[in-house]
Structures are given as structure tokens and as C-alpha cells.
């Protein structure tokens, strides 16, 4: 090794940049996800049901076959007829109309809770995972304290203290119990992502912390975040129905599937349709969201495929 090895010098015109270079077909991550999702039949069915539900909720804001609150449309406890396909309830209200109105409540609560709890969870999770130290200690403590408290207790307390039973209040109450999962997930993702080399590389060119969090860490955690948020929706819908069933949900006569089921429970023996119909709607909705969530999870993270 007396002199520098001459074999290490490539020819001077080794790099001829051609401007006629063809770049292959561009497939964005979302198109790719959609391709995988399309192959999952169950997820597609779930998605279709969710879309129908959403449309129903939208339609019900300005049109239902009968007003949801109008009583004595016919004999109380009447079973399904041509005029009222799902029958009438104990006050003679049209169950189909009320089901549609209930879909709206469910969707608003589900999506609202998913949004609010995701915002809380993402912000706290990102901060805890990125800055660690005392920030993480505080957030983790908060998560553990909330984890230890029964969800129902928190929600009942909030409803009782605020003395309000509007949709917003219910969303807030459920969100306060639902952000834990998201915060944990995001914190974990952040802890692992912050050690990745591209974060170090971003730091090495002087990128600001906030920018690293928003542009580097958050988008890389987006897949799991979407999946988690999708699973929060059915959980929140179920929780709202549960609250309404107990009588702590939205104020009557606003229809809610839980409240409708509660009404029907008393007449289970002679008019079972009053409880069966909202219960079935709830079941189908929850399953649809779960199938969709499962499908999204598989589609967003191909490595997790079973």
C-alpha cells in the first residue's frame, strides 16, 4: 500500500445525467392501502354499512318518515305494518324514524369522540414520547390514574357535575375515558420513531423539535393512529347506548338506540320488536366498524398480516 490505489478512480464521464429518464408509475401510500383493502371482502361489507349509516344519519337531519318525537301515530306497541315497517313503540312513535334519528346520535357521538380523544391522545402521546423525562412521567401517571378509574364513574361524574345531557357533553365525557389507548399507542410509536436515523438526520441539519414531531414522527405513526381511532368509534357508540339505556344519555325525546332499547325492555314479552330493532341496529353497526377497522389495520400495515 505504497500509493493510493489507482483502481479506485472511476472514469471522468461515469455520471451522465440523462433528462429522458423514466420514473415508474407513481402509487401513493393511500392508493396502495386501498388496493389491499379492496381484497378484504369483510372489510368492504363493513365499510358499505358504515357509509349507509352515515348517509342515514345525514338524511335524518332533514327528513324522517315521521317526526321522531310524534306520539300516538297508531296503536301503541303495534308490530311491523306497511305504514310503519318497524312498528310503533310504547308511546305510538314510529320506530323507523327513531332508528334513523338514533343513527345520527350514534354517528355524531362515535366520530366526535374519536376526534376529540384522538387529539388529546396524540398531543399527549407525542409530547411524552418525544421529550420523555418529567413530561413523560406526568402523562404516564395521568394515563395510569385514568386507567384505574372505572370509565362509567368518570362519565357519570361529568354528567352529574355539569348537569347537562347534550351531545357535546356526552362526547366530552366519553373522550375523557377514551384518550388513554391513543395516548399509549402514540407514546410508544414516538419512543421508537425518535430513535430512528431519519430523526437524527433531521436533527443533524438543524431541524426544530416541533417540526420533527409534526413532519417526521406524526406521519410515520399515522397508520396505527387511524386504526386506533376507527376502533374508538364503535366503543363510543356502545358506551353512549349504554349511558342512554341507564338514562344518563341524551335527553328524551331525542332518539338514541340505547334509550329505545331501554323503552323496549319493559315490553319484551308482548312487543319484542321495540327492543330487538335498536339492538340489532347497534350490533350491525358495531360489527361493521370492527370489520372496517380490522381491514384498515391489515391494509395499512402489510407486515402485520396473519
Amino acid at each position, binding site marked *: 500500500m505504497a500509493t493510493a490505489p489507482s483502481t479506485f478512480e472511476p472514469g471522468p464521464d461515469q455520471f451522465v445525467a440523462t433528462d429522458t429518464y423514466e420514473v415508474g408509475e407513481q402509487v401513493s401510500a393511500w392508493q396502495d392501502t386501498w388496493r389491499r383493502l379492496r381484497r378484504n371482502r369483510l372489510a368492504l361489507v363493513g365499510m358499505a354499512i358504515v357509509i349507509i349509516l352515515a348517509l342515514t344519519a345525514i338524511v335524518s337531519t332533514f327528513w324522517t318518515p315521521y317526526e321522531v318525537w310524534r306520539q300516538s301515530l297508531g296503536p301503541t306497541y303495534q308490530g311491523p305494518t306497511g305504514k310503519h315497517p318497524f312498528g310503533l313503540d310504547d308511546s305510538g312513535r314510529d320506530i323507523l324514524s327513531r332508528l334513523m334519528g338514533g343513527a345520527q346520535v350514534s354517528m355524531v357521538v362515535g366520530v366526535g369522540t374519536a376526534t376529540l380523544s384522538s387529539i388529546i391522545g396524540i398531543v399527549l402521546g407525542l409530547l411524552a414520547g418525544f421529550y420523555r423525562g418529567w413530561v413523560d412521567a406526568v402523562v404516564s401517571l395521568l394515563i395510569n390514574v385514568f386507567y384505574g378509574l372505572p370509565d362509567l364513574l368518570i362519565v357519570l361524574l361529568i354528567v352529574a357535575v355539569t348537569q347537562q345531557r347534550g351531545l357535546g357533553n356526552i362526547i366530552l365525557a366519553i373522550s375523557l375515558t377514551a384518550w388513554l389507548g391513543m395516548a399509549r399507542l402514540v407514546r410508544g410509536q414516538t419512543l421508537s420513531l425518535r430513535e430512528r436515523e431519519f430523526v437524527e*438526520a433531521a436533527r443533524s441539519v438543524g431541524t426544530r423539535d416541533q417540526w420533527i414531531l409534526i413532519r417526521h414522527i406524526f406521519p410515520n405513526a399515522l397508520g396505527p393512529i387511524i386504526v386506533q381511532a376507527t376502533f374508538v368509534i364503535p366503543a363510543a357508540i356502545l358506551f353512549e347506548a349504554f349511558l342512554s339505556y341507564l338514562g344518563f344519555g341524551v335527553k328524551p325525546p331525542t332518539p338514541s338506540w340505547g334509550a329505545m332499547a331501554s323503552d323496549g325492555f319493559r315490553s319484551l314479552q308482548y312487543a319484542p320488536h321495540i327492543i330487538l330493532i335498536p339492538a340489532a341496529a347497534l350490533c350491525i353497526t358495531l360489527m361493521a366498524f370492527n370489520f372496517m377497522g380490522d381491514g384498515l389495520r391489515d391494509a395499512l400495515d402489510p407486515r402485520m398480516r396473519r
Partner: protein
Amino acid sequence: MSFVVNKGETLGIVGESGCGKSVTALSILRLIPEPGKIVSGHIWFKDRDVARFSPEELREYRGNDVSMIFQDPMTSLNPVLRVGFQIKEAMVAHERFDNKTADARVVPMLQKVRIPAPKERAKNYPHQFSGGMRQRAMIAMGLSNEPDLLIADEPTTALDVTVQAQIIELLRDLNRDLGTAVVLITHNLAVVASLCTRVIVMYAGRIVESGPTRQIFNSPQHPYTWSLLQSIPRIDSTQHDKLLTISGLPPDLSNPPPGCLFHPRCRFRVDRCSKEEPPLEEVGPAQAARCWVLMKNALAGAEPAR
């Protein structure tokens, strides 16, 4: 550990794995991974001590004054962001260029690092780049703010041999054309020989030899340097000898051997080596070595210097 990089110079740091090359480089940018920290000493950059920088000064310094390219280009780019955007981000972080100018500089930067069809490529995601192209994109990112010093931490280790040559060629040309000083960290002596004017040989966190590249390759004075050079297969060798190896591993630095850190593995050791650690002493014009014996004595078979 003390060394100087002059303006526009190319300095090589060599040594086997785990001898502190990368930590040295990360220290210059104050990017040492936790729980490591700088306990004492100074890092002077243009008469300012980097070791005493505030976080904001540090952020300004990274990328603007000194930037770094990493070993593995596969993981150093954020997979969810377009390459052009990531290069632009490095510029926007320092407010040296406004949004428009930064945008306009992306394509020329890619061109400068010889990426074909830079305009189209800027819109690509990292997974659409080959390894060599990603490393070039990293170099473009590192150079986008025209830093005075570029630290390349084993920039060719993860690439195949033909691409290695291209990257080295590119670094050499950029050094010549832009006057950016380069610190090249590697264990590949051929790369050092072809790029660097000066070289530092590290062993167990210490400089064991330093000097002009030509001189070190011609007459290494430290047995470690000598052994490294002897362990490279030579294409012009007429003898069919076995290659020399250095037996054993670098010492555990939490429990270092007494005296010279290299003595347990040194074939030229004398008694004094296990008792006292030799100082880094001038052994030739601009060349220094940390050894009691020195190769000129060892090979001559003469009595080692006292």
C-alpha cells in the same frame, strides 16, 4: 483526543469498529445518544465553543455550519416524505432561504450530487431511490445550507463497491468545487487513500497516529497502523503469504488494560508498554504516533527507543 480540521481540508478518521470514531463525529454535532454526554473539553468552531452552545445556537450550528451524512442511507431518509421536500426542509429550518428560494434550490442540489432527472426525482419517495441515490440525496441535504464542514460517517459502508467509488468521487469533487471541508470516518483504508489529505488513526478512543495520508501509508509508525495496512490484500503482491491479522478485540473501555491500550494485541510490545501509556509524539514532519517502540525501530530490529 484532540485534532484540527482546516478550512477546505479532507481529513480521514480510521480505526476498527468500536474505537470511538462515530462518537467523535457525533460529538462535533453534539448528537451523542443518551445517556452519553460531553463531560469535559472543548469543540472549537471558528473560535466559538460548540460544547457551550445553547440549544438554539446548536440548532443554528447544525446544518448551517457543520452537517453530517450517516452510514445507512436506507434509514436516514424519512420514508413518508418526498425526497425534494426533505432537502428543502433542511434549508427552511435555518431561514437562510425563503420558501421560494429553497424550492428553487432543490433541483440544482440534486443535480449537483448527480442524480439523473433531478426534477422528477425530487418528487419521489425514498423507497423509489436506490441506495446510492439515497446517499446522494443525503449529501444534497447536508450541503444544502453550504456548511463549512461535512462529516461523513462511513458513507459507503452500506453501499456496494461500484457505488462506493461513485460516492467517494462525488465527495472529492464537492470538496474541490465548493471548498467544504470533509471529515471522513471509515474503516476502509482505500477510501481514505483516495480522498483524504490527512488521516487520524484511532484506537480505543484515542488517537494513536496522525499525519499526512501519503506519509502514513508509506511509513506508518504505530504498530496498529502498520498492522491495519498489512491486513489489506494487495493486488500487486507476488508472494502468497497469509494476510496479517490483529488477534483479539479492542479493549473494554470500562476496564482498560494498563499502559498502552494496544499492547495486549501488539506483536512488537516491550516491557514498558504494559506499564506506562506513551504520549502522542512527533515522529516525522507533521506526523505523530503514540508508541514507545515505533515501527522504524521495530522493523530495523534495533533496540526500541527508551
